[in-house]
């Protein structure tokens, strides 16, 4: 919202030596965020009013003249090609150093003295488009300069002063005052400034309306809950002329385009007082008797309506509307209709000033996608006392614009609100306890009274009456009063202290701890890079991966239209990262820990004690790796996962998995097991898919749920005794069926002999000589005893036992046999 200093001055004293930045700072520190301060005059620096004293022709150019121009302190010689130059004419002179735009085109430049066809020129006589005033001084011919002869300003007067362009415009962040309906106007901001600065606030008191009787108006309120006040009055002999200068200048200063005097007038009162008004053309909405019978009612479902700007709408039965007997004339508090609006022929209007329900206006304007200055104010909850002032003000100003205009009706005023003010009872100690300071009662009372609250002291307590403009939603409880006090007392005057608390340690968040430990292990030990990916998935990418989008939750209003889905897995995102980085890096090893969203399992409650459950949102760990020149990246991930298990006390293993997805390599995919629990999967990407994605090396991925892992018990770390007697290492190499897994063989060996301490796989070998379905597999086997040094014979015997068991349990043959 833009606020004009000159307009504020109607209601609060602002000194001439006025520091706009200081005021902006005070407003920001105590009330609302001032985002910008613009001094209008800054754009007109170096431009002054001048008077042409003499004109001579240019010796070397027919169209140019050499003018002697009085600029107050001296006379300047200026070469000018203006068509309408005359002696005695008042003009705009740009002095050396002013900013102008040559012929109204391009960027503005700083004016320098120049020699034009041999004649020196010490400035410029300006056309309106050269100084950004074309709207105000339209040109009838191309080289016409601004004629200020009608202005009273003397030579040398700054142009900004002469034209009243000395305003300062404050831009206030709308979002910072959603709770302050009273601030959506110059009147309200002025009242706040008066409270902040301790200056007197000039209450507006427009005269009572002298009612007329040429137009009969009646209003029926058919939606009392949604309309707490409806006022209307008719006026004769108005017309949509161009607005007078004062009206137009004020609206333009705050960025509003002037339309015609009737529309501008209603807008003016809105920006002045914060009360949106509407003007109906009385001749369009009357019945056959010329009487105007208005009804405030909800639209019927399916009822049609065309807005002022010709937008066709079909309404629902929650839309609050103003109607006559035959049709809807306006969307209450939002926008008028084509059928009832002011046009070029309008001579009689009905001004409406009403109070509509904030929620209703917001709901309708959101649903219809129509946000107006009016709806923005209504949805903040307006003071129902305001329409009376606004209606008087609009009549007052109408008679200033159209001296012949008269009030043509009675003032209709239908009310459905309580005038009983809100009184908040509290103590000074409550305020001080909440703030952690000691502010004396006198000061508290003074602050509240400056802000328009009435305070009655009763013993220790204060009874604080909330002014009507703050009472609609903004202030109703003790805490609200605390805020009023502290923002004027000054946040900077509150000390910084620590609360005194019991030192009971905080309950740990096990899932967070697990997540953090795993991140540290993967990044610090395994050399993986952590990525964060979006929660939103692309259907197109999933399709390229050959993954179904069934069961995916979807956004109703995605911002990235190609990413409407909520991810169910981390792998697709990680593959996007791999694809993105693979051409730049030889090694890409990534992980992500993040939530996924699954509607087919239930998560947390949507509210306490409700049966409605949100989708499950487990925390997942995803891994992906690519290494140029490594054709089995599977084992890199398997090793990293084993390392996580080793650090955290979980035993992870990998067991064969049936795969039906074309994304994965059918021969390189496994369940990630923690004990007997299937935790997730690990796989290589199918090389065909990988090549189609444009990735030139094998890729492995893995994913499992940390939420699920957390439910499993980890094995606490224990010391294992260091052997007292030497260990002996032997090798065992056997030939088994190709399908026999290492883990199977390992398990058999570990249980085969008491002297066997551990085994280590060191070679797997396949060859046609061994047999097409066979493989050779070789282990280092370590033997030891905890009470004696082993003899060769003992070890030989153990080896024999183990081999025998291997032969029996998995058909192993000793290599070379």
């Amino acid at each position, binding site marked *: 919202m833009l606020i004009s200093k000159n307009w504020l001055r109607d209601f609060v004293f602002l000194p001439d030596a006025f520091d706009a930045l200081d005021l902006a700072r005070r407003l920001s*520190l*105590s009330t*609302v*965020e001032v985002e910008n301060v613009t001094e209008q005059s800054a754009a007109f620096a170096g431009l002054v009013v001048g008077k042409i004293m003499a004109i001579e022709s240019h010796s070397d150019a027919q169209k140019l003249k050499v003018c002697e121009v009085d600029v107050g302190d001296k006379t300047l010689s200026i070469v000018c090609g203006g068509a309408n130059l005359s002696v005695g004419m008042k003009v705009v002179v740009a002095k050396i150093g002013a900013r102008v735009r040559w012929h109204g085109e391009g960027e503005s430049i700083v004016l320098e003295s120049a020699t034009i066809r041999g004649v020196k020129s010490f400035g410029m006589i300006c056309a309106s488009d050269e100084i950004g005033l074309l709207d105000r001084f339209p040109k009838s011919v191309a080289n016409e300069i601004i004629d200020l002869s009608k202005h009273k300003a003397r030579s040398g007067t700054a142009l900004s002063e002469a034209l009243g362009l000395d305003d300062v415009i404050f831009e206030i962040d709308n979002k910072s005052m*959603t709770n*302050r309906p009273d601030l959506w106007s110059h009147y309200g901001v002025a009242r706040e400034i008066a409270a902040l600065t301790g200056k007197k606030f000039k209450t507006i008191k427009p005269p009572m309306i002298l009612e007329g009787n040429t137009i009969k108006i009646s209003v029926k309120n058919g939606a009392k809950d949604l309309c707490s006040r409806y006022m209307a009055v008719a006026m004769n002999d108005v017309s949509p002329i161009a607005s007078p200068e004062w009206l137009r200048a004020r609206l333009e200063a705050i960025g509003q385009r002037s339309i015609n005097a009737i529309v501008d007038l209603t807008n003016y009162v809105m920006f002045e007082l914060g009360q949106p008004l509407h003007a109906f053309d009385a001749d369009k909405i009357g019945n056959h008797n010329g009487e105007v019978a208005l009804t405030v009612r909800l639209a019927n479902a399916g009822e049609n309506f065309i807005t002022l700007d010709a937008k066709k709408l079909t309404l629902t039965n929650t839309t609050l509307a103003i109607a006559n007997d035959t049709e809807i004339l306006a969307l209450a508090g939002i926008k008028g209709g084509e059928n009832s609006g002011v046009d070029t022929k309008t001579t009689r209007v009905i001004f409406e000033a009403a109070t509509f329900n904030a*929620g209703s206006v*917001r*709901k309708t304007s*959101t649903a219809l996608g129509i946000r107006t200055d009016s709806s923005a104010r209504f*949805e903040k909850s307006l003071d129902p006392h305001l329409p009376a002032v606004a209606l008087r003000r609009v009549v007052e100003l109408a008679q200033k614009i159209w001296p012949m205009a008269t009030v043509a009706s009675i003032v209709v005023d239908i009310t459905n609100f309580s005038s009983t003010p809100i009184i908040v009872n509290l103590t000074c100690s409550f305020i001080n*306890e*909440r*703030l*952690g300071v000691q502010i004396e009662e006198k000061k508290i009372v003074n602050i509240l009274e400056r802000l328009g609250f009435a305070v009655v002291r009763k013993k220790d307590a204060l009874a604080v009456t909330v002014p009507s403009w703050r009472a609609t939603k903004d202030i109703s409880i003790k*805490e*609200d009063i605390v*805020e009023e006090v*502290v*923002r004027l007392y000054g*946040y900077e005057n*509150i000390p*910084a202290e*620590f*609360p*005194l*608390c019991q030192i009971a*340690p*905080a*309950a740990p968040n096990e899932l*967070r701890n697990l997540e953090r430990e795993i991140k540290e292990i993967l*990044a*610090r030990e*395994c*050399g993986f*890079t*952590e990525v*964060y*990916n979006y*929660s*939103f998935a692309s259907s197109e990418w999933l399709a390229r991966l050959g993954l179904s989008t069934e069961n995916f939750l*979807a*956004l*109703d*209003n*995605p*911002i*990235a239209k190609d990413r409407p889905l909520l991810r169910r897995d981390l792998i697709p*995102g990680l593959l996007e990262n791999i694809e993105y980085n693979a051409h730049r*890096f030889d*090694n890409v090893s990534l992980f992500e820990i*993040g*939530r996924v969203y699954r509607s087919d399992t239930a998560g*947390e409650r*949507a509210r*306490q004690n409700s049966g409605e459950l*949100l*989708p499950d*949102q487990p925390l997942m760990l995803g891994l992906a790796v690519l290494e140029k*020149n490594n054709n089995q990246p599977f084992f890199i991930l398997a090793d990293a996962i084993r390392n996580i298990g080793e650090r955290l006390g979980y035993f992870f293993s990998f067991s064969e998995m049936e795969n039906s997805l074309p994304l994965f390599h059918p021969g390189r995919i496994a369940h990630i097991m923690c004990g007997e629990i299937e935790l997730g999967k690990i796989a290589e990407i199918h090389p065909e898919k990988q090549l189609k994605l444009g990735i030139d090396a094998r890729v492995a991925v893995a994913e499992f749920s940390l939420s699920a892992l957390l439910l499993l018990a980890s094995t606490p770390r224990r010391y294992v005794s260091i052997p007292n007697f030497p260990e002996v290492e032997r090798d065992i190499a056997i030939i088994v069926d190709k399908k026999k897994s290492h883990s199977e063989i390992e398990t058999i060996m570990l249980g085969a002999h008491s002297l066997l301490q551990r085994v280590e796989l060191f070679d797997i070998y396949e060859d046609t000589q061994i047999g097409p379905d066979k493989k050779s597999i070789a282990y280092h086997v370590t033997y030891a005893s905890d009470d004696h040094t082993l003899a060769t014979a003992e070890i030989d015997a153990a080896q024999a036992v183990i081999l025998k068991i291997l032969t029996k349990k998995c058909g192993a043959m000793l290599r070379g046999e």
Partner: protein
Amino acid sequence: MSKDLQKLHNESLVHIATALDLAQLEAVELSLFSRQNGRLTMLMKEIATVLPAEKKAYGESCNTVKEELIGSIAKRREELTNVRWKTIANDERIDPSAPLGTSSSSMTRAQKKNYGSLHPISRVQYDLEDLFTSMGFMVLDGPELESDYYNFEALNIPADHPARDMHDTFYLKNNPSWVMRTHTSPVQVRAMEKYGAPLRAIVPGRCFRNEATDPRHEHTLYQLEGLVIDRGINFAHLKGIIATVAKHLYGGETKVRFLPKFYPFVEPGVRGEVTCFLCHGTGCRVCKNTGWLEIFGAGMMHPNVLRAGKIDPEKYSGLAFGLGLSRLVMLKYAIPDARYALGGDLRFLNQF
């Protein structure tokens, strides 16, 4: 001693003494003691031709010479070896500024270890988690896909409240009462329901705002929320905690100021600004010449929010604050574009 032996003895001592390196010395050693044709070996074999009466003396003198020569060789070997150590500084000099995996190193490029990295948001988040846990705060989390109730209603933002304008919200298809949480604040009420009062907790986490992305805006962002509920919690406490965080982040000289700001779930509500860490308040590009950076949203918890969490606002009061982790990270590392955080580019991620 025979003449031959005497000659061999004298010559050999000269050879040993003049051997310039270990290889020459070894050659001398071999020329003396080689089994096939060592000169001393040959002389010793001649004992067979010596008269029986002289055999003993011949053998003894041979052994004496042999031992002496062995001793000399050993001594010379030690000398030569020590000479090698004297020049090693020059012989085996490396360029300490060269990286691992260059030609003189034993490790090839392919064997080089991959060093991993944590995401910058994780790093800043953990830094703050550690600060808060040291002050006895719990670290909590909640659903990212949240109910309208916890995201808005329980936080004193009813339907059709204009404050919803401040939250550009992603809604879920076919379920209008589900949203992608717009802030971490829904966990306030979940935490109160679960733990009651007193309560000290922070909530770092992912949030969503339905707004177009550009260098300064990202629809997926990280916040860190904090709350303290106890008897007698007041505004000065809020200031104390915020000042502590600011000093932790930006150093002990950092100042904090509060400005009024409306959030429906706090009353009073403020935004907290800190003196710019770059210019220390004099004004620069980072703080847009204001000298201040807006870091926090904060306030005293609204009694309606306490009530929603089943906590009696007459007995307890609470403070709450939130800060944009994503923004903090951008400021800390001078990252110019908000979109890098979730862009998955290793050239970015490997820097942390």
